[in-house]
């Protein structure tokens, strides 16, 4: 699903050169649920941004669902991002002046789906997260847990193959966090690959595989991934350092 080989990311200013990722390699297979952990400033968010095609990388190779993304133009990257990736953010990132229906509609608009198709997908996605009855509500009228469910519905509506979650329960109390995590696990069981960045060891423990990043490099990983859905070729999913 996602493969990075010897990838590097350097931030340059006229005074300083910062290596956010160096010689970074990882291979996430279809259907995996991978937790990416590491201390603050280790590079895990940079990894997530590059993996989500939100940021360019400085060197190395990166394939997303078999597509080499090196040198890809903005239009093509945006299209690929829209079709393949769903995002879930710590702070939900719902647009406050759009109701729930219209929030979930945003990625579908950029996909150029027609109105009936968009409506069908929105209905399905909101039903899946248990919020079909709230589609005319605005984000401010929902609890944090419900807002995160809307964000998950938005991420799912375009049927992405990969879900990128950045501290998805970071702004939720434990009860709501559990509910969101259970929802992510269910989504993963249904075949969607999930990469989740988290600080929380308990949360990471729920993933099939942990990847630990320190100073922009993968330092530790489970080499025996406990896949809920086996890879098509029967091979184990591994992370390469």
């Amino acid at each position, binding site marked *: 699903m996602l493969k990075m080989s010897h990838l590097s990311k350097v931030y340059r200013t006229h005074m300083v050169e910062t290596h956010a990722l160096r010689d970074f390699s990882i291979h996430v297979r279809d259907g995996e649920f991978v937790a990416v952990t590491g201390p603050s400033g280790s590079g895990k*968010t940079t990894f997530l*941004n590059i993996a*989500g095609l*939100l*940021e360019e990388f400085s060197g190395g190779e990166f394939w997303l669902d078999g597509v080499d993304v090196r040198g890809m133009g*903005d*239009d093509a*990257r*945006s*299209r690929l*991002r*829209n*079709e393949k990736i769903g*995002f879930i*953010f*710590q*702070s939900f*990132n719902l*647009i406050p*002046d*759009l109701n729930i229906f219209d929030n979930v509609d*945003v*990625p579908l*608009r*950029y*996909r*150029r789906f027609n109105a009936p198709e968009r409506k069908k997908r929105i209905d399905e996605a909101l039903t899946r997260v248990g919020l079909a009855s709230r589609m005319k509500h605005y984000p401010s009228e929902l609890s944090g847990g419900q807002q995160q469910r809307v964000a998950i519905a*938005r991420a799912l509506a*375009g049927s992405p193959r990969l879900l990128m979650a*950045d501290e998805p329960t970071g702004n939720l109390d434990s009860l709501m966090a559990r509910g969101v995590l259970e929802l992510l696990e269910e989504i993963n069981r249904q075949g969607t690959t999930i990469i989740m960045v988290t600080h929380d060891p308990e949360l990471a423990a729920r993933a099939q595989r942990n990847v630990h990043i320190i100073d922009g490099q993968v330092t530790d990983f489970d080499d025996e991934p406990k896949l809920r859905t086996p890879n098509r070729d029967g091979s184990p999913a591994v992370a390469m350092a």
Partner: protein
Amino acid sequence: MFAYYLELGLRSLKRNPILTALMVVGIALGIAASMTTLTVMHLMGSDPIPWKSAKLHYVQMDNWSPDNPYNDDGRPPDQVTYRDAIALMEAGKADKQTAMFKISLPIQPQNKELKPFQSLGRVASADFFSMFEPRFEYGAPWNHDQDASHARVVVLGKDMNEKLFGGQDSTGKTVRMNGIDYNIVGVLDDWKLRSRYYDLTNGAFTEPDEFFMPFTTAIDLKQRSSGNNSCWKTSGEGWDAYLNSDCIWIQMWVQLDSPLRLTEYKSFLDNYVNEQKKLGRFPRPLNNRLLNVTEWMRDQKVVSRDVEVQTGLAFAFLVVCLVNTIGLLLAKFTRKSGEIGLRRALGASRREVFTQFLIESGVVGLTGGFLGLLLTGLGLLAVRALYTQYKSVAQLDWSMVVATIVLAIVSALLAGLYPTWRACRVQPAAQLKV
């Protein structure tokens, strides 16, 4: 996607009503100032008779003093002498021709309830009406025979007919002017000219003529011009001496229906002046001109320098308003960086973000345009109230309505370019982490 972006633009305007109002009012004020002055300038300089302006030519001949030119820049005098006008009329070399001058006569109404009053009119030849094409409400122009017989006939303007006869058909009746009865042969319909281009020597934006009478009749009755009269040497005593003098007080127009006819007439005019030179007249070098209507309007600076400067200043004000709008749009779009980052993450390309925010700028421009149109209407109302001479040109026509809206949208799009470019450069990754 256009409809979606339009909907987002409208939502965005509603979300920040104060900021939106500041931008819309800013653009509207700039647009109103620009369009008010531009409308006046546009209508002042517009071709008043586009279907035949190239065929109507104003005759100029340089009969002026050998020592002092009439104009320092070498342009010939703007009127002709009586004897030259008569010579050209009698030669009849043009397809149509009219000599004319402005006249002021006392009117003595038959209706005793009306007091006698002074009225401004025009003395012209019969061709005047077919050359400049005023519409008739009643009757028709006088004819060439009546020109030749110095007939006591008159054509009334609509307002004069309204005043004297309550707007009824007055043809066949008489009107007494300066103690002489004139038979009314026609009454003009409303003749709204943006500028009185056929006599720019007496001001382009003066009141319309109230009556018209034959040139020959007025000369017969020794009616002097009430317009401009210039002499470079004394004219001598008496009416006949005045008519034979080198004083200029007559405007001469000819209609030439083809370029060939223009060339022929120019040649005729040169020959005429050369013949006059042999008689001791026209001491200056040959300097004849046959300017058409639009050339004549430019020559006479119908659009004055003041109006051009005012228009320039108004557009400078629009630029100031747009700079203000750029600042406000920058503030607005900067506040939306989070949403921009999110939309980028959800699949919007830079191009799509650019389009969305440019359309939002266009919505601001469109709203500002409609408000600007309203303010332009008020501005023109004020111009008409303050400067009555401009009332014929301080009016919005359809082309200027469209121009106002287009200018507002283009201005807002230009103002939106930089903020929009900034918006589409937003790094999504930087906006999405809290």
